[in-house]
C-alpha cells in the first residue's frame, strides 16, 4: 500500500500545480486565491507580523483614533487593534482549518460507509445524522459549551458535530448515485474489491461537491467562532479573536467606530475570499467545465 502511495504522489503534486494555475487564470478565482493566501500568510506568521503585543494593556493610550503608530487605533484597554486583528486571524484560521478538516474526514468516511456499505449500516448512520440534524444548532452549541466549558477546542467540537452529518449526507447521496453507474459494475466485473472501488472510483467522483461546500464553509466557521467569542462562549480573553474585538468595539461604539471596523473588515474579506475560491474550485473540479490554460 505504501509503495502504491509513493508512486502516485509525484503525479498528484503535478496535478495540484496545474490546478492552482487554472484557478489563478479565472479573475474571480485569482482574487479569491489572493485573499485566501494573504489570510493564510497573516495567520501563519501572525506572531512575526504584529507591531505590538496584542494583549499588552496600555491604559493611557486607550481608544485612540487611527494613526501611523496604531493604523487601526487602540481599544478601551489601550491594546493595538491591528495587532489584535492579525493575531485574531491566526485563531480564526486555526479553528476553521481544524474544524473543517475533521468534519471533512468524518463526513467522507461516514458518507462512503453509509452509501456503499451494507443497508443496516446506512440506516443506523442516517438515524444518527438525522438525530444530530434535528437539534437546533444554537441550542446544540450552547449545550456542548455548557457541558465542556468555553474554549477553542469546544468551538471546534461544536462545528464538527454540526457539520459531519451535513457532509456525510452529501457524500452518501453522491455515492448512491455513483455506485449504480455502469463503470462501477464494469470495475466489479474486472475484479475490483469494495475498498478499491470506494477509494479509487467513488471517492474522486463524490469529493468535488464536498470540497466546494467545505471551502465555502470556512468563512461560516470563522463567523461561528467570532459569534461565540462575541457572546463570550468561544475564546477566553485576553486572546484576541475577531469576535472579541467586535464585542469590545460594540461596547465602545459611542466613543469610537474604529474597533468595530477593524474587527469587521477581516470577516468580510475572508468570507469573500473563500466564496470566490470555492466557486473557482467548483468550476475546476469538474473536468468537463475545465477550460484549458492558454
Amino acid at each position, binding site marked *: 500500500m505504501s509503495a502504491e502511495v509513493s508512486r502516485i504522489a509525484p503525479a498528484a503534486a503535478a496535478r495540484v500545480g496545474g490546478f492552482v494555475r487554472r484557478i489563478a487564470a479565472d479573475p474571480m478565482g485569482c482574487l479569491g486565491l489572493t485573499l485566501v493566501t494573504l489570510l493564510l500568510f497573516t495567520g501563519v506568521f501572525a506572531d512575526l507580523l504584529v507591531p505590538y503585543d496584542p494583549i499588552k494593556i496600555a491604559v493611557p493610550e486607550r481608544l485612540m483614533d487611527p494613526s501611523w503608530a496604531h493604523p487601526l487605533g487602540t481599544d478601551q484597554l489601550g491594546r493595538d487593534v491591528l495587532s489584535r486583528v492579525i493575531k485574531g486571524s491566526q485563531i480564526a484560521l486555526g479553528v476553521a482549518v481544524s474544524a473543517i478538516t475533521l468534519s471533512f474526514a468524518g463526513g467522507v468516511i461516514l458518507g462512503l460507509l453509509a452509501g456503499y456499505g451494507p443497508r443496516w449500516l446506512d440506516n443506523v448512520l442516517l438515524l444518527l445524522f438525522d438525530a444530530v440534524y434535528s437539534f437546533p444548532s444554537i441550542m446544540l452549541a450552547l449545550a456542548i459549551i455548557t457541558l465542556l466549558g468555553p474554549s477553542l477546542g469546544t468551538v471546534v467540537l461544536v462545528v464538527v458535530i454540526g457539520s459531519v452529518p451535513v457532509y456525510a449526507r452529501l457524500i452518501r447521496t453522491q455515492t448512491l448515485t455513483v455506485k449504480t453507474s455502469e*463503470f462501477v459494475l464494469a470495475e466489479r*466485473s*474486472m475484479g475490483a474489491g469494495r475498498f478499491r472501488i470506494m477509494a*479509487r*472510483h467513488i471517492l474522486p*467522483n463524490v469529493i468535488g461537491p464536498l470540497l466546494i461546500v467545505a471551502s465555502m464553509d470556512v468563512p461560516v466557521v470563522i463567523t461561528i467562532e467570532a459569534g461565540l467569542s462575541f457572546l463570550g462562549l468561544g475564546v477566553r480573553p485576553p486572546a484576541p479573536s475577531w469576535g472579541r474585538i467586535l464585542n469590545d468595539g460594540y461596547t465602545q461604539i459611542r466613543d469610537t467606530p474604529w474597533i468595530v471596523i477593524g474587527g469587521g473588515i477581516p470577516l468580510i474579506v475572508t468570507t469573500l475570499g473563500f466564496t470566490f475560491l470555492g466557486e473557482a474550485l467548483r468550476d475546476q473540479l469538474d*473536468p468537463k467545465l475545465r477550460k484549458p490554460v492558454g
Partner: protein
Amino acid sequence: MSAGAVLDIRGLGVDFLTPRGRVHALRDVSLQVPRGSVVGVVGESGSGKSTLILAALRLLPANALILGGEVVLDGEDVLRMSPAALRDLRGRKATMVFQDPSTSLNPVLTIGRQMIDIQYRDRVPTARKRDRAATMLRKVGIPDPATRLDNYPHEFSGGMRQRIAIAMALLCNPDLLIADEPTTALDVTMEAQIIHLLRQLKSEFHGSILFVSHNLGLIAELCDRVVILYAGAVAEEGSVHDLFHRPRHPYTQALLECDPARLAKVSRELPTIPGDVPDLLAAPVGCAFAPRCPKVFERCRREAPRLVADGDGHGAACHLVPAIASSRVGPRPSTGSGRGPPVEPVET
C-alpha cells in the same frame, strides 16, 4: 461439449424481490459458451438477457435471489464461491463490456489511471503497466495511445470509448468476454467498427465471447451459436446457420420476420409481434409465448414445452418442434428460402 466450455450455465433460475412481488426473471436457463467461440444471446427488453450475464459473474443486484442451478466458469462454480475467490476470478477469467460507453468509464479519472489501476494484480512497475495499457489501446485502434492515456473519457468519441472499455476488459487477459449490447448506444458506422474489432480480437486472443444483443443482424454476423431468450427462458438455441435458416420456434420465426433488413419490400409499417412480453410476476402456466403465438393450440396453454434438441445442438422449446423437425418445412415461404442472414448491421 460441456468439457470444452468456458462458461456452462445449467438450470439457472433467478427471482427479483420487488415491492410488487417476486419477478421470475430467469427460469431454468441453460447456456454453454464453448472455448474459442462466440455465442449470441437474443431477446426483447425484459427477456432476462442482462440478468443472465450478470448472474454469470454473480454481479446481480442485492434484491436478486438465485433459486438454483449452477454457473460454471472455467470449471469453477461461480454461485458457490467465497466473495474473495469470486473477486479473484472476475477479470482474470471473464470481464464485461457494457452497453453505454459514456457511463462505463469513470468520468473523473484519466483512462490511463483506470487502465493502470485495473492491473493491480500484477506486481510490476507502473511504467510497465502503462506500456501494457498503451499497447492494448493500439490493438483496439486508438491512435497515439501513449499520449491519449492522459485524456479523460469525455475527450473521446463514443466509439473510441467503447474500444477503450474493450481494451480495459482485455487487459486482464480473460478467457471470456461478455459483451452486453456493446453497440446499442453507437451509430451504425461505429457499430460496424466495434464488430470488426471484436472479430479481430476473437482471432487474435483466441478468447470466447458471450455477445448479448437484440440486433439479429449483428448476431448473424458475429456469432457461431445463438440462444433466443423469451420471458426468462430459452426459446430456441442452435448454430447461427440453423437458427437463421431453419428457425423452429414460432417466436424465432416471428422475430426474423420483424427484422427490417429481411423485409422483401419497402414498407412504411414495420411488422411487429402482436401482444406484450408477459408479466413475470407470475410464472406463466404453459408456454410463455402462447398468448402471442400464431400457431398456438390447446396444449400450449396447459403444459410448458421442454427444450428438445437434435443431434446438431439445435433445440427449441415448442410443442410443435418434433413435427417441424421431421417434416423439414421451410419456415418462411413468403420471403423465399434462398436469402441468407442479413449482413448489414441494422438497428431493430
